[in-house]
């Protein structure tokens, strides 16, 4: 299924950081939602800033416009403030993009677990993210870091417990 670009994507001013404050706010909001939906569509869990500059997300070759690094940094900062982004290194070169927050993932996973009547069983992380049973689930293919965090969120809620086993981690659902 190909990605549907919003109308702003083909509007050249979208790629220039607007000086007018009100206009800028609307522009940034549009960029944030575009970035999140793009990553959701491509199942991207992390972004490298330099690579992102060249990706179709921030670089629309059709209208020969792309966002400046400065603008990308501002958009990332907005996402971070909203809680959808976390920096993975001090130099801000790579970030975790959470188009779904750990708590939301946790909820989805738990729903599947209870629906399948699998509470009180133990799963390895691998089973959850890459097992055959979960193939049709949205969280299939979830990146390990995010998976762990979502399970930790469940753990905080008291609905799961993370267990360390010989060859990795596992989780028990209650």
């Amino acid at each position, binding site marked *: 299924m190909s990605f549907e670009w919003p*109308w*702003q994507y083909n*509007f*050249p*001013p979208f*790629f*220039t950081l*607007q*000086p*007018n404050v*009100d*206009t800028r706010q*609307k*522009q940034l909001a*549009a960029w944030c939602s575009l970035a999140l939906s793009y990553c959701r569509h491509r199942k991207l869990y992390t972004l490298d800033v330099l690579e992102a500059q060249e990706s179709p997300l921030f670089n629309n070759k059709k209208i*020969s*416009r792309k966002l400046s690094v400065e603008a990308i940094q501002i958009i990332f900062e907005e996402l971070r403030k909203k809680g959808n982004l976390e920096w993975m290194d001090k130099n801000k070169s790579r970030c975790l993009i959470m188009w779904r927050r750990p708590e939301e993932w946790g909820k989805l996973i738990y729903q599947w677990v209870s629906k399948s009547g699998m509470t009180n069983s133990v799963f390895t992380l691998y089973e959850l993210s890459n097992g055959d049973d979960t193939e049709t689930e949205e969280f299939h293919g979830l990146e390990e870091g995010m998976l762990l965090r979502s399970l930790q969120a469940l753990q905080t809620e008291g609905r799961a417990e993370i267990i360390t086993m010989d060859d990795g981690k596992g989780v028990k659902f209650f």
Partner: protein
Amino acid sequence: MDRFTWSNGLLEIHETLVIQQRGVRLYDGDEKAKLEVGIVMLTTHRLIWRDQKNHECCISIPLSQVIFFEEQAAGIGKSAKIVVHLHACPANKEPGPYQQSKFSYIKLSFKEHGQIEFYRRLTEELTQKRWENTPASQPIPTATGSQAGRTRAVGIVGIERKLEEKRKETDKSISEAFEDLSKLMVKAKEMVELSRSIANKIKDKQGNITEDETIRFKSYLLSMGIADPVTRETHGSGTHYHMQLAKQLGDMLQAPLEERGGMMALTEVYCLVNRARGMELLSPEDLVNACKMFESLKLPLRLRVFDSGVMVVQLQSHSEEEMIASALDNVSDKGSLTAEEFAKLLGLSVLLAKERLLLAEKMGNLCRDDSVEGLRFYPNLF
């Protein structure tokens, strides 16, 4: 550095200058010599160094003292250098800048480059050893000859000296000339006092001097840069002159402003007004001061300053909203516009066109597209 001796820098007979280079600093071994930056001169017989600022400070060393030399490449923040290794000091050496040195080599640091050519010439001279061909009337410390018959062969150094003297003379005559000017300034002050006292006398004897003459006199004062002495106000409520001027401008600018859509850059006004006047031109200052008075004199014009600092005169009837609305229409019509295109469309100057577009952007009616293709404005669809 203890191999150098003080010198007057003048060339001897049979000694010729091979190459010289400015911007050279000397190093005693690896340490900077306690000398400033100077000019190094290679002659057929010696290496001479003279301080660039203080020409009295001049030292030299015979080329026969050089064992060998090598280049030292430039580094970050370091100029290229030539390292010159020297023989030991002869016992009867004349005094020089250094009594002793722990180094047997010096360095020439080429702060303004020139090291490549210098190195080449130095190699040539040390190969040819031309100093050995000349008779003994030279200031080589090893020579036992007397230094009595020292002939002042002039050469380049002499020319330099002459130029220096000429420069000093010119300097002197200029400062003398300016002395007269400062005397004039003093006189001018007296003149100002004089005119002020006359003006006061005029004020007192209102009846005796005609209105006409008074006005003439005041305008003379104004043209000399002295504000109207009768009214003591300065900017703000302005002088009488500026008020009159403002009224005149009000009349004069109506038509041109209407032609140009109600707005003109102040520079355009300046050109227009002075061209019309022919004589008795306005100074920019007077123009600005007069324009500042439009509002207080209830004239239908306004002086307006944009965010970017551009000053314009506009008709009071000129409506901001109308302008922006029409700008939006134009841009929507064409999809997008640059300042140049917009200017062409409306017959405005590019400067004013840009200001209008920027204003519309500020109001949120337009948004910008800044790329390598230039700055374009689009209707704000956000």
